[in-house]
C-alpha cells in the first residue's frame, strides 16, 4: 500500500517555493505519437504493418523487417519487471529535488523491453501493468503499476507527478450559473478537493444553481464575470495564488448560423464569453498558476476548458456558437505552448449537446451534468490533455480522426427534401 497523502500545511511565505523545473522534454518526432496517446490516456506502441512486431523505443523503420509502415496501435500493457533501481542523484534538477526515484526494466508480454517509472507498490520482479501518462514536461512516460490495485495507489509520489489529481487541491469553477456547476463542484469535493471556489457574475441576479451549491461544505462563492477584465483581475488578486485547478465552464450559447440571425449581436456575446472570457482568465490566472506548479501537495496543476466537440467540426444548427468554440479550442493550443514551460497542463473536455434549455430542440443522446463531472474527474486523475464525454463527442472525434474533410461534408448536407 501507499502512504496516504496528508493535507499540506499552511504555506510559509518565508520559505522558497520550489521552482517549476521539468523532466526532459526533448523527443524525436516519431515519439510524439506516444505523447498524443498519453494525452488521451491510451497505451499504444508502434506496430509494423508487415510483420506485426511491436516497436519500442519509437522508430522510423521496423527493427525487425525494415518496413517504414509503422502504426500506433493499442497494446496489451501487461509485463514483468526484470530489473529495478532507485535513482538517488541526477544532473536534472527536477529529479534532484524529487529523489529517490524508482525506475525499472519491464519485459512486456507483447515483446518490447521498456525502461519505465515504477510505482512504489510494485513487487521486485513482479507482474505489472504499464500506463502511458504525460509528465510535467508534457511528454509521454510509461509507468509500471502493480497488476492488482493497492491501497491509496494514486497517492504514490511518482504517479502524482504525472496526474492532475484534485485530492487536497483547490479548484475554481468560473461560472456558478451554468447548469453543470453543482455537479462539477460536488465531484471535485468527492475526489478530495479541499475547497471549490465558484464564480458568480451579476451577483444581484438570482439563479437556480445557487441553492444546491450553497448546500455543499467547502464551497466559496466569489464575484467573477469573465466578460469583465477588472472583475477577473480582482479575483486573481484574491485567489490566484491558491487556485490549483481552474475549470472554465463559462458559456454563452444560442442556436443558429449566420443567416439564421439578423445581426452579429449574439455572436459577439458568444465570443465575449467563450473566447475572450478564456483569454481574460488566462491572462490573469495563467502567470499565477505557472509560478506554483511545483508547490508541493497542492501545486497548481491543470487548466480545464469545457468545449463543444463541434469546435472540431461545425454543427450548422449551432453554427456561430461552434465557431466561437473553434476559436476557444485554437486559443487552448496557444495556451498549451504558454503553459508548457511551467508544466501546467491544459485539459480540453469535449462534449456533445448537453441536457439544458438551449439544447431542447436537439435529439438525444445528451450529456447530463453528472456524466460531464465524471469525465472531468477521470481526466484529472489520469492527467489527460484531451478527453471526450458522451457518445456524441466520442463518435464525432472518431470520425474527425478518420477524415476531417469527410466529416465536414457529413455535417453540412442540405438534405434532399421531397
Amino acid at each position: 500500500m501507499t502512504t496516504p497523502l496528508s493535507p499540506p500545511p499552511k504555506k510559509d511565505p518565508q520559505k522558497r517555493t520550489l521552482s517549476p523545473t521539468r523532466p526532459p522534454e526533448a523527443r524525436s518526432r516519431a515519439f510524439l505519437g506516444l505523447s498524443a496517446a498519453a494525452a488521451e490516456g491510451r497505451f499504444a506502441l508502434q506496430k509494423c504493418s508487415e510483420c506485426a512486431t511491436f516497436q519500442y523505443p519509437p522508430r522510423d523503420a521496423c527493427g525487425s523487417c525494415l518496413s517504414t509502415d509503422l502504426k500506433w496501435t493499442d497494446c496489451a500493457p501487461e509485463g514483468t519487471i526484470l530489473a529495478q533501481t532507485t535513482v538517488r542523484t541526477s544532473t536534472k534538477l527536477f529529479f534532484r529535488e524529487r529523489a529517490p526515484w524508482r525506475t525499472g526494466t519491464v519485459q512486456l508480454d507483447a515483446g518490447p523491453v521498456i525502461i519505465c517509472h515504477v510505482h512504489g507498490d510494485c513487487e521486485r520482479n513482479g507482474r505489472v501493468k504499464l500506463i502511458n501518462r504525460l509528465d510535467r514536461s508534457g511528454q509521454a512516460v510509461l509507468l509500471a503499476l502493480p497488476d492488482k490495485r493497492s491501497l491509496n495507489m494514486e497517492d504514490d509520489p511518482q504517479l502524482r507527478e504525472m496526474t492532475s489529481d484534485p485530492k487536497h487541491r483547490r479548484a475554481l469553477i468560473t461560472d456558478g450559473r451554468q447548469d453543470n456547476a453543482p455537479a462539477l463542484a460536488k465531484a471535485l469535493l468527492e475526489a478530495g478537493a479541499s475547497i471549490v471556489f465558484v464564480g458568480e457574475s451579476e451577483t444581484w441576479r438570482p439563479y437556480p444553481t445557487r441553492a444546491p451549491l450553497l448546500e455543499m461544505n467547502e464551497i466559496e462563492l466569489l464575484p467573477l464575470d469573465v466578460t469583465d477584465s477588472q472583475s477577473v483581475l480582482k479575483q486573481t488578486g484574491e485567489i490566484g495564488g491558491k487556485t490549483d485547478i481552474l475549470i472554465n465552464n463559462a458559456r454563452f450559447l444560442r442556436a443558429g448560423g449566420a443567416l439564421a440571425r439578423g445581426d452579429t449581436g449574439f455572436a459577439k456575446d458568444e465570443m465575449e464569453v467563450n473566447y475572450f472570457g478564456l483569454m481574460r482568465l488566462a491572462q490573469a490566472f495563467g502567470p499565477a498558476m505557472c509560478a506554483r506548479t511545483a508547490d508541493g501537495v497542492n501545486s497548481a496543476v491543470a487548466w480545464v476548458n469545457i468545449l463543444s466537440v463541434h469546435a472540431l467540426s461545425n454543427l450548422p444548427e449551432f453554427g456561430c456558437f461552434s465557431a466561437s468554440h473553434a476559436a476557444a479550442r485554437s486559443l487552448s493550443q496557444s495556451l498549451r505552448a504558454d503553459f508548457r514551460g511551467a508544466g501546467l497542463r491544459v485539459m480540453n473536455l469535449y462534449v456533445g449537446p448537453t441536457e439544458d434549455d438551449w439544447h431542447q430542440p436537439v435529439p438525444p443522446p445528451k450529456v447530463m451534468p453528472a456524466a460531464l463531472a465524471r469525465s472531468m474527474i477521470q481526466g484529472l486523475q489520469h492527467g489527460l490533455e484531451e478527453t471526450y464525454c458522451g457518445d456524441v463527442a466520442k463518435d464525432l472525434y472518431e470520425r474527425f480522426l478518420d477524415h476531417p474533410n469527410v466529416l465536414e461534408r457529413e455535417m453540412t448536407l442540405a438534405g434532399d427534401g421531397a
Partner: protein
Amino acid sequence: MRRRASYDGIAIVAPHSTPYQRYSIETAHWWIAKALRGSLNSAGLTPRDIDGFTVSSFTLFPDTAVGLTQHLGLCPSWLDHIPMGGASGVVALRRAARAVQAGDANIVACVAGDTNHIDSFRMMLSSFSRFASDASYPYGYGGPNANFALLTDRYMQEYGATREDFGRICVAQRENALKNPRAVMKKPLSLSQYLEARPIADPIALFDCVMPCAGSECFLVMHQEEAERRGLPFVTLAGAIERHNAHPQDPIQLRGGWTMDIDELWNMAKSSPDAMDLVQTYDDYPVISAMQIEDLGFCAKGEAASFLRDKDMTITGDFPHNTSGGQLSAGQAGAAGGFIGLVEAIRQLLGSAGGTQVKGATQALVSGFGMINYDRGVCSSAAVLKAITI
C-alpha cells in the same frame, strides 16, 4: 566462411597519455592536439609526416575529424572519425592497421580526447542518442548510472554476484592507480569504504562510478618496416574483433558482442586467455569488466565473481587487470576512456609503463565496450597485442 586476413606487418608505436584533469577550461581540440603532439614527439615526427588520422571525441562539436585537419594543420590521405565511445580504441587500431596494410596510409595517428567543463557532462547527456532522449533519460535522468544499475541488478540476481565481488575489482584498480602518477584518484580505497559509499542508483554506489574528467590518448600505427627504418620500438597486433548490436533478443544485457567473435579472436591471435600477461577491460562499471572476463573466455558465463575471488588483480598479482587504474581510478576522459586500456597495454608491452609495469609482459588483451544507445551497450571490441620478443 572466408577467414579474415591477419594483421601481420603492423607496428603500434609511440603511446601517449596526456595527464587527466578533473575539470578543464580548454577545449577538446586542445586536448587532442596535446596527445597528438605527445606521440609525434616521442616518435620524432612532425604533423606533415602523418598521412592517416582518426579521432574519437564527444565534445568536439560542431567539429569532426574534418575540422581538425585544418585546425591542426594535417593533410591526410586517409581520415576517420569513430563515434563508438568505449569501443573506439580497438576499432581505431584495426581500421588504421587495414589502411596501412592496404597502402592507403603510411603512418596513421589514432587520437581520442575530450574536455570536461563544469557543466559539460550534463550537456553531453542531454544529446547522447535519440533512443536515450526518447526512452531512457525521462526516467529519473540518472544517465549511465541508472542504466548500469539496471544491468547490475539483473546480473546480481542471475549469477549471485555480490557487491563485495564488484568491490574487489574497484579496490585492486585503485591500488594500481596509486602507482600511476597520471591517475585522478590519489587516495587508497578499502573494501569497507567501497561498501559503505554513498548510494547513487541502487545497487550502484559512488565507487562503482567513474570520475568524468578531461584528458587525451594517442598512438601511431605504421608498417613494421617503417618503424624499424625509423628505429621506433613497437608492439604487434595479433588479432582484433568488433561487433555491434549483438544479441538484440536478450531482454536485458548480460553478455556483449565478444561472444560472437571470441573464437576467431583467439584463433587469429594463436593464443589463449591463459597466455595473457595482463588484461585491460573497459571498466565504466565493474559489472561490465566482469561481463568481459566471461565473454572473452577467462571463465564461464556467470562465473566472473568466483573466478576473480581467487585472483590478485594488481600489477604484481596473478591476473593484472586495468594496470593504470582504469577509468574507475584514473578517470574517464570521455572518448579517451575507449583508449586508456589500449594505450596502457602498448606501454606495458614496450616495457615503458613505469610505475605500473607488469614484469616481463609480452601478451595483452584489450577490450572495449561503448554507447548505451537505449538500454544496453551497443558496441564491443577486443584486441590481442604482442611484444616483438615472441
